[in-house]
């Protein structure tokens, strides 16, 4: 119990959880914002062509997380490609600090998490029957109206499933925040490792871990009530 008490007393532990939730929520939001148009675009294409474009989502998915984190480190640094490019086209004048902070962490995390959102969402969109859109059009709905009234609500289960997977994975994420956050973005997993490495304090590390586990299971329980769990994992509705 002592360990939990200390967790409540120590402001720094509460801060770690706040940052963890902040990063997880922001990453999920970014993934939804950029993942939805991408999945929509892919779901409209003929299956064969979509399959080829889909490789752009699958290739990063299959590539080592370390490699991608390293690549972002290279791209985002002061003299990196992104800064050079932005300065050339006049977006900003002096190099902007894009890495070893929250910005870098979010960019890297969103890149790694996007496939987990796009794959189930794409599957859900593919299963929406085009006849439904025709029916909506026949009943007088304008294209934009038909999208918001018919297509979007029907794609929601896929989006919720994908977002939950992304959120849960973010909660326990370690490598990317540790490297791209440069010690400034301390998430739960980073904190647990630090406690074990520096103080060898199993009690404190476990207490942090249990809270993380409870948070994860709680979200999955909610997900299970809303959608069938195995369907979430299979990306089916």
């Amino acid at each position, binding site marked *: 119990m002592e360990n939990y008490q200390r967790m409540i007393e120590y402001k720094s532990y509460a801060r770690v959880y706040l940052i963890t939730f902040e990063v997880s929520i922001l990453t999920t939001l970014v993934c939804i914002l*950029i993942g939805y*148009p*991408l999945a929509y*675009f*892919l779901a*409209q294409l003929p299956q064969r062509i979509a*399959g080829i*474009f889909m*490789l*752009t*989502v*699958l*290739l*990063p998915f*299959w*590539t*080592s*997380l*370390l*490699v*991608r*984190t*390293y*690549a972002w*480190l*290279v*791209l985002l*640094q002061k*003299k*990196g*490609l992104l800064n*050079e490019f932005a300065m050339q086209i006049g977006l900003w004048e002096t190099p902007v600090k894009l890495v070893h902070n929250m910005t870098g962490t979010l960019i890297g995390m969103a*890149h790694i998490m*996007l496939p987990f959102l796009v794959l189930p969402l794409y599957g859900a969109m593919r299963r929406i029957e*085009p006849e439904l*859109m*025709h029916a909506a*059009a026949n009943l007088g709905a304008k*294209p*934009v109206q038909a999208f918001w009234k018919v297509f979007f609500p029907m794609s929601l289960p896929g989006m919720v499933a994908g977002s939950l997977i992304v959120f*849960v994975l973010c*909660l*326990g994420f*370690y*490598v990317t925040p*540790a*490297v791209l956050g440069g010690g400034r973005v301390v998430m739960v*997993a980073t904190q*647990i*490792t630090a406690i*074990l490495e520096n103080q060898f304090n*199993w009690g404190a590390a*476990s207490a942090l*871990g249990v809270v*993380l*586990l409870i948070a994860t299971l709680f979200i999955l329980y909610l997900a299970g009530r809303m959608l069938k*769990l*195995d369907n979430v*994992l*299979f990306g089916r509705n």
Partner: protein
Amino acid sequence: MGFWKKPASETQITHADRLWLYVVALVIMLLMVIPTVIVVPMSFSDSQYLEFPPSNWSLRWYDEYFGSAKWMRCTITSLHIGVLTMIVATPLGTMAAYALYVSGHPAARAIFVFLITPMIVPVILIAIGTFYVFGRLGLNNTIGGLVLAHTSLATPLVMIIITAALRTYDLNQERVARSLGASRLKAFFLITLPQIRFSILTAALLAFLTSFDEVIISIFISGGVNATLTKQMFSALRDYIDPTIAAISTIMVLISTALLLTTQFIEARQVKK
């Protein structure tokens, strides 16, 4: 141009009106791929520093990598563990998936969810738990211990792929074989297995990749002569940026691209059948 003035489909707005969608999608796809392939030109740079595009080209980072006993040793360790994990996890996951799929027992669903928990629970928790238990058992820093831990991560993946394959397969075929006198085992090996063999291959490749790319558990439980490639890379990344990593990354990207294209090829053949 006629194309842009036409609606995207009978129920949609014109291509011109949703030009933004195409632009956004293409930019996102580019952003997904660039960080994956950028390491390739980086790895041929002559410079100590990370610069792009490199001013001089050379193979020095490949020399550094292939010439280093330390990097070679951990690469071999990772390959070793990856192959062993694949060999253990593929049959294990296939058997579990098959059993749970055909049993129809009320508890089958619960057991399935229980068996795939390693995929759901944050890996950091698995890592510290494993580290603690293996510490007591003397399994830390051993090949066997790493294979065990990676198998627990790879097996759920195999189960999910095989279950998905079984869903598209008609189990009646196996019942026919059995009614014609084949034993259950024989029916499985002669009838079911050949039909899901492509999925098993995909599952095996993913099992290998899961182990080969795994970082967090390896950071905790591998060390000394049995340190994995990912562990070595992680410490090289966190402490200072060694350009040798660009060369290693390029090789890793090549491996994953080859494996991905293999599975896509397999899938295409499966669809054709």
